[in-house]
Each structure stands twice: as C-alpha cells, then as structure tokens.
C-alpha cells in the first residue's frame, strides 16, 4: 500500500469529497509519523455510518454491524503488529480497505465482538453484514 502525505491539502480535499459522496461521516488514518482525522459534521443525512440492525441496548441481544460502503473487508489492521486491533475498548470490529485507505468499522463502545460475518479479503457492499456484536456484560 503506498504511503499518503496526510498534510497535503489536495489529499485531504479528495478524501473529504469521497467520504461525502459515500455518505461516510468520518475517517481516521494513522501512519507512523502522521495521523489524520476527518469528521464530516452535519453531513447530508446525518446518520451514523456504522450501520447496525437488531436492538442495540437489549441485554444479550446480538447486533449486526453492516458495511457503510463497498470495500475489501479485513478483520484487523495488517499494517500494525502486536496491537490488538479488534477491541472492546475502541469498539473497532474490523476494517474496510478502500484503495489506500483502511476505514475502521466501529460498533460503538462497550460492545463485544461475537463473530465476524464476512471473510477476510472479501469484497463487501453497502449494508452487507460484517460482524455480530453484543453488549459487554
């Protein structure tokens, strides 16, 4: 994967345009020496882009996390080593690889990953089930 210059205004502008077009609310990109956080507040539809189905607050009820856009599914960030990528602390249940970008799939805090519903490396589409999570006890 080629390295992005995250301080380049053109890169930021292009990423923002792509996120807006895809209906994604935000993205966080971290490299060893740079990081970039884009949050599109007041986006067109204002909806949370970590799509879920089920009853999120019911105790023990599993919730399905769906893909907010098309991409290649990865259960963990392959650019890192040693760090637990899928964690209850971050609520991240996997990543969508979209070109040079890894988009974190966030289930939300205090959720425990029950199982992945997509295979590693498969191309998933908008709304495809990615993972099943449940509230932490």
């Amino acid at each position, binding site marked *: 994967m080629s390295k992005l210059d995250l301080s380049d205004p053109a890169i930021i502008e292009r990423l923002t*345009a*792509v996120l807006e*077009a*895809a209906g994604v609310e935000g993205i966080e990109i971290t490299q060893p020496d740079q990081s970039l956080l884009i949050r599109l507040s007041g986006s067109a539809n204002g909806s949370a882009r970590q799509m879920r189905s089920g009853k999120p607050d019911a105790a023990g009820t599993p919730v399905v996390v769906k893909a907010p*856009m*098309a991409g290649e599914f990865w259960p963990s960030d392959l650019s890192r080593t040693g760090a637990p990528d899928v964690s209850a602390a971050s609520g991240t249940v996997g990543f969508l690889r*979209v070109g040079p970008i890894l988009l974190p799939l966030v289930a939300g805090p205090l959720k425990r990953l029950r199982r992945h519903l997509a295979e590693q490396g498969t191309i998933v*589409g*908008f709304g495809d089930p990615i993972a099943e999570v449940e509230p932490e006890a």
Partner: protein
Amino acid sequence: MPSTQRFDKVLIANRGEIALRVVRACREMGLKTVVVCSEADRHSTYARSADQSICIGPSAASKSYLNQNAILLAARLSGAGAVHPGYGFLSENARFSAAVEDAGMRFIGPDADAIATMGDKIAAKSAMVAAGVPCVPGPDTELPVEPNLIRAIASEIGYPVIVKAAGGGGGRGMRVVLDEADLVEAVSLTREEARKAFGTPALYMEKFLQHPRHIEIQVLCDTHGNAVWLGHRDCSMQRRHQKVVEEAPAPGISEALIGPVGEACVQACQQIGYRGVGTFEFLYEDGAFYFIEMNTRLQVEHPVTEETSGVDIVQQQLRVAQGEALSMSQPDVVCKGHAIECRINAEDPATFMPSAGIITALELPQGEGIRVDTHVEAGYKVSPYYDSLIAKLIVHGRDRADAMQRTRLALASFKLGGITTNLPLLRELFEDPAFAQGETDIHYLEKWLKTRGTA
C-alpha cells in the same frame, strides 16, 4: 485513451432489465460481469445473475445508481476493465465517461467530448447542420436576451415556434409559442426553468411542427472510422414524451426517402469521431425529416432494431469498446420483416400512477418471433424508487400486419398478477384501427386516451 483496450470484466452501472440484457451479452462473449445494486435491489434474482454483485448504496438513485464515486469504487474493487452505463442514470453524463476513462477503465459508450457536444442541443444542431443532417428551421445559435432580437428570430422562422433549453432533452425544458404576444414571457419563463433544471440558461428557438411523427435512426461506429446505420424506428406512440410502443421500420417511409438521411447520420458520426452506438432522433412531417437530438447511448427500444437487422447491438457495443473494427459495412445491413416493442409498465392503466408491490404470478408469452426482456419474476418486489418499466415485449413478424397480430396474441397471453400494469391499455390500443393503419403522429396517443376518458 488508445483505440484498443481489451477487458475481460464489465461492471454494469444500471439496474433492471437492461442490466440483465448486458449480462447476457457479456456472457455470450465470455466476459465476466459485475452488477452494482442499491439496497432496494439487493435481493433481486437478476442482481445475483452476474458473476459478482456489489451493493453500492441506499435505495434512492441519487445515493446509488447516480453516485459516480460509489460506482467507480465498486469498479476498482471488482477489477472491472470497463463500465457499461445502460440507459438513463449516468449513461449520458460526460463527466462520468471521463471519470471512468481517467480511472483506467473503458466507458462503453462515446467519449466525454461527444457526449458533451450532443448534450448541448445548440452545439449538436450546429454539428448536424455542418454534416448535412436536416434540421428543424431555426438558427443553430443561442437565443439572444434582447426582446427585439428574439421577436425578429421568431418572425423569420414563422409562428408557431418552440423555445428549447440547450441543456434539455427527452421532452423537458421546452415551451410552444403560438404568436408574438406570448413570446417574450415564454422565453423568460423557459430561461429560468432551464437555469434551474439544467444548470444553463441557454435557449434556442425552432419552428414548431404541429403533427410530426418521431422517427429515429440507429447508428453503430467503431474507433477506426467505420460507421453504419441499422435502419429506422417509429416511436410516435408516446404519452407525455414517454414512449409506449416502438416499431421498426417506421411504416410508410420509403428507403429512397430515408436512405440519404441515414447516410448523413453516418457522415456526422465520422466527422465528430463518434464511438459506439447512438440514435439520431427526428421529427417527420410532410415528407421531410428534422433532426431534434442525438442520444449517445443504448436506447430502451434497441431490440426492435436487433430483431429486424439481426445485429446484437449490445454485443457490438462491447466489441467496439474492445477496439475491434466493425465486422459489417453498410451493404451488409439488411433489415427484414417488422418488429414491435411494447413497454410493460407497473402503473395503473387509467390513471398512470405507479404501482409498487409484489408480483404474485407471472406467465410470459412464448412462441416464434416473441421475445420478452425483463428482470422480474413471480415474487419480485416492484420498488417505488425507480422507473416503472418492468418488461419489454418484442414481437417480430414478416410484415407490420403480421407483427401487429402476433403482438395482440402475445399481449393476450401475458399474465401478471399482484400489481396493476398497462397491459389492458396496450391490448386496447392494438385494437385501434388508426394505429393498425400506421403512420399516426406523436399526439395521437394522448388524443386517443382522451376519447376513452384517460390521459
């Protein structure tokens, strides 16, 4: 972009019957297919008929089938080498054509410049005048703002005139003016509508023909300078500028009369370096043809030309996009018999209100010369989000009378339950003596509907 660009996987940026039609053509040529779909189409059988299906967004077309970035992303992810836009949606969007090619893929259609030229009706008319294609009387330049100059142009053309938006098309952005008293206000209103609807206030003015027929000429062009025309169609049976029945060839028009027009269309394509398939639309009145616009894409009604010419137009599109030279020259194009297409719409046959819901039963007509292009089946849920077209009945006969009779029988045996469709209206229309006679004009259907209490 080089003229030769081989690809083995095609992403189809469309839905419904045309997506399925392109899948079929690709499969017959050994090409892999990727269909993009919206949330509403996710579970459709047709979406799964492709080698790969990728959901690209919510049901609203603006967030899925019109979302260029989402489509390009799906194309990149799937490794597609080409994008087929079908008709409607992004098929005549010059920016999309350019974006596909900038991304290193082939847009299966003309290049962005040709789409932009033909999308600007003034530029298109100018190009046609230069190529010797007959046009409607009126200048091929933008209408000035000065009222006296506008009056002078209208006076020179002769009333009634029609004011049209340069960025319009398909019956949108136009206003008929019967006399000078209404002229300036009509121009002002149309200009404002054009600015809002098409992003440009540019207008032009033409003679308004009162009883024309809608005749089109299908062209096919490769990237080596070769071009042919595949005969002509009559699409006069329209309601509110939406075609209901199309046929090929146009009845009552001799080859001697239309031949030079077809040749002029071919020459125009060669002059502008046009690539792929296209349709020249004409109004026809009192034995004369008047160019109105060119559609730079596959048409809904392309099957009637396929049936009479024997040419698979979608496969030809794919071959041209691969950089192949046309395998036929004009003398090889021989049209036989007569073909009719009926658009089967999910709509109330009396009120024309869209009819969404689940198709509970479906029995398609079968037999010699009968073809049905459709993506629906029993259990299919007709979505309220999209166009109401659910099937096309195409019938080929040895002549027009034979095709009409076969169509009557096919319509009678076409069974579709669960939702209302325009099948009853079509059955009744095919019993109409004037339609059976042929050569009715573009206003005929609306007048006929009024006589039976619907319009």
